[in-house]
């Protein structure tokens, strides 16, 4: 019996060693890169944001591991290391996410975490990330405050913050000669909605000082019923109505407002209005000015990298990619470029997190949505080009985005060291349009 037990222990040890050898030897012998991916996989933000983002992320990770992505992303995995993703559901609030983050870093021993759609989570995670010295890439959330109010060593955001969306829309309205003598807004009552409205209304007042604010509505997030708000906005007779509503709230608002002639009576602008287009299809109203939080989806540039990603996503899922998958892929591309740059600096050997963080700081990389430059937050916060367009029906009656105006990153993003709202208030000094 004793002999049997000892044999079993020896056999298990040999098997474990073999397995660990196989694990470390995969993907060109460079080992494995464990990546925690956090996004909404349940709850109201899952369908419009989390699920399509993770679909894009899954697809891109698969293509990277197979070495099928185009240059400069054609090296397998991350610098030859096979990417093993551990997806985590972002729902449940910031307290739960901090715990999930600790689990990923301390229990699952991930090499990096890529995630977070919610601005609340993006405000809560960075201090914990620096405390645990865990490399963290924020791929989606919009609040400018992450790097405006603090600085972090191991945290990076690979997408522009929300100020860009609203500054660009204000500029678009002026350039296209729209009547902005009066404005109104309907935005959700939390950081994203409040910041979006502030950036938009202050930009408009700066560009057109005589413009009058008629109505500012902040319904609670996920309220779903907007009949009263629609009446109040129509009663205000504002020439332009701004909204940063997203997901189910935006879909419900459109469905409730359209039969009441809302989109014919006022010029509506949606700062992040593209992501519900795949779902709503031709129920999406004509004549809406919208942004996609970058040059994404129907407003993506005609480049080889974008055309490759757009087609790969369409082929896999049968629907065009809107902003969420673009932004997750952008995050993965930034991380890959930083790791491979750090690897080069390290003589081709696997870099540690400090070396990756150093390489990430101030990095520039091409993404499907254009050139991403880590220029703000002392090299930790990205800026990127932007595009604004207007919905119209094509000859087949399908809703498309036309009249697209593209903005350079330096035209709609503040310079390093200046808060977005201060930059707007100062009249966009140094903007390179």
């Amino acid at each position, binding site marked *: 019996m004793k002999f049997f037990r000892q044999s079993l222990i020896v056999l298990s040890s040999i098997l474990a060693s073999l397995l660990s050898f196989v694990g470390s030897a995969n993907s060109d012998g460079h080992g494995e890169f464990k990546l925690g991916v956090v996004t909404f*996989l*349940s*709850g*109201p933000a*899952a*369908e*419009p944001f989390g*699920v399509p983002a993770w679909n894009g992320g899954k697809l891109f990770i698969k293509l990277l591991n197979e070495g099928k992505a185009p240059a400069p992303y054609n090296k397998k995995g991350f610098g030859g290391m096979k990417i093993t993703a551990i997806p985590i559901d972002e729902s449940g609030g910031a307290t739960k996410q901090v715990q999930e983050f600790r689990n990923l870093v301390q229990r699952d021993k991930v090499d990096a975490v890529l995630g977070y759609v919610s601005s609340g989570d993006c405000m809560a995670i960075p201090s914990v990330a620096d405390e645990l010295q865990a490399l963290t890439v924020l791929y989606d959330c919009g609040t400018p405050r992450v790097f405006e109010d603090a600085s972090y060593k191991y945290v990076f955001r690979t997408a522009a913050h929300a100020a860009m969306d609203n500054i660009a829309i204000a500029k678009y309205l002026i350039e296209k000669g729209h009547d902005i003598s009066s404005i109104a807004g309907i935005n959700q*009552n939390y950081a994203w909605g409040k910041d979006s409205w502030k950036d938009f209304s202050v930009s408009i007042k700066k560009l057109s000082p005589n413009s009058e604010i008629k*109505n*500012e*509505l*902040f*319904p*609670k997030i*996920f*309220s*779903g*019923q907007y*009949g*009263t*708000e629609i*009446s*109040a906005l*129509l*009663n205000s007779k504002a020439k332009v109505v701004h909204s940063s509503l997203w997901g*189910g709230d935006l*879909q*419900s608002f459109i*469905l*409730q407002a359209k*039969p*009441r*002639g809302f989109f014919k009576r006022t010029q509506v602008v949606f700062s992040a209005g593209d992501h519900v287009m795949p*779902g*709503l299809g031709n*129920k999406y109203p004509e004549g809406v000015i919208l942004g996609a939080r970058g040059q994404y989806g129907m407003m993506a540039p005609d480049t080889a990298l974008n055309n490759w990603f757009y087609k790969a996503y369409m082929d896999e899922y049968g629907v065009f990619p809107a902003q969420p998958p673009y932004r997750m892929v952008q995050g993965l591309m930034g991380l890959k470029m930083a790791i491979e740059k750090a690897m080069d600096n390290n003589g081709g050997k696997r870099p540690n997190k400090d070396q990756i963080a150093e390489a990430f700081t101030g990095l520039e990389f091409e993404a499907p949505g254009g050139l991403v430059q880590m220029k703000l937050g002392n090299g930790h916060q990205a800026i990127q080009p932007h595009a604004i367009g207007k919905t119209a029906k094509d000859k087949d009656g399908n809703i498309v985005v036309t009249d697209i105006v593209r903005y350079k990153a330096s035209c709609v993003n503040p310079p390093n060291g200046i808060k977005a709202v201060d930059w707007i208030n100062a009249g966009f000094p140094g903007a390179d349009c």
Partner: protein
Amino acid sequence: MIDELLTIFLDGAIYASWLFIVALGLTFVFGVLKILNIAHGGIYALGAYSTATLVPIFYSLGVPEQFVILTMLISALAVAIVITPIMERGILRRFYGQDEVLIVLVTYAIYLVLEDVQKLIWGMNSLYVSEPRELLGALEFGSLYYVGYDLALIGLAIFCGLFLWLVLNKTKSGKIVLAVIHNPEISGCMGVNINKVYLAAFFVGAFLAALAGSFTAPLISVQVGISVAVVIESFAVVIIGGLGSIPGAVIGALIIGMARAACVHKLPEAEIFIMYLCMAGMLIFRPKGLFQGTQARKI
């Protein structure tokens, strides 16, 4: 000024009607079974999903458009027929007479299960079924257009409330239910089949929840998570009106609907907490709600 008052009244009435239909089932189930059914929101969502599934099939069959309302009623009925035996007979019956907190936790657990059932059956994608909302066109009130379907919700709410009140107060079956509400033990001794009354009452509650979801589906994007706000708001209505009271639900829904509409139009900053203010005020000054009468102490 008149225009604005009319707008506030109409917006408030439409919102109150929707709230009332949702809260009616909740308050009725509490009145009869003494169960605070958190799963009510889950049944509401199932009603919305079933309508979003059945209505496109209805349109594909080429049946005259007017019958779409019938399809919505059938989908609500189907949900109630499926869910009632599972919930009432299968689960809740085992907990009658137990601590109220335990029963609330059981219904919360069922609510979570129903959320997952929605994901299992319909996935994470949103469903849209806005076509029935175009059925009644739009009407002009002052300077604004209102969708006929939204205004018809007021009629539906009045019908549901009146019908339930009449059945309870003017029919033999209704009087049996009232007897069970007053004293289930004595009613049982008098030959009333309590289990059947409970089953029927739960069925009515589930049908009303599913009906509310079914008629809300054309207004919204039907997706996972739509029931959260519904649970909170319908609880606020029954707390203000008094748990188990139909007139209370009417008044509760009207108070919240009108207060919310007035806030959105005249004081938007207050909109987010006006419902909680009404609820808190009621809990301070009349903890049992407007229509909860004094209860005799049993010896």
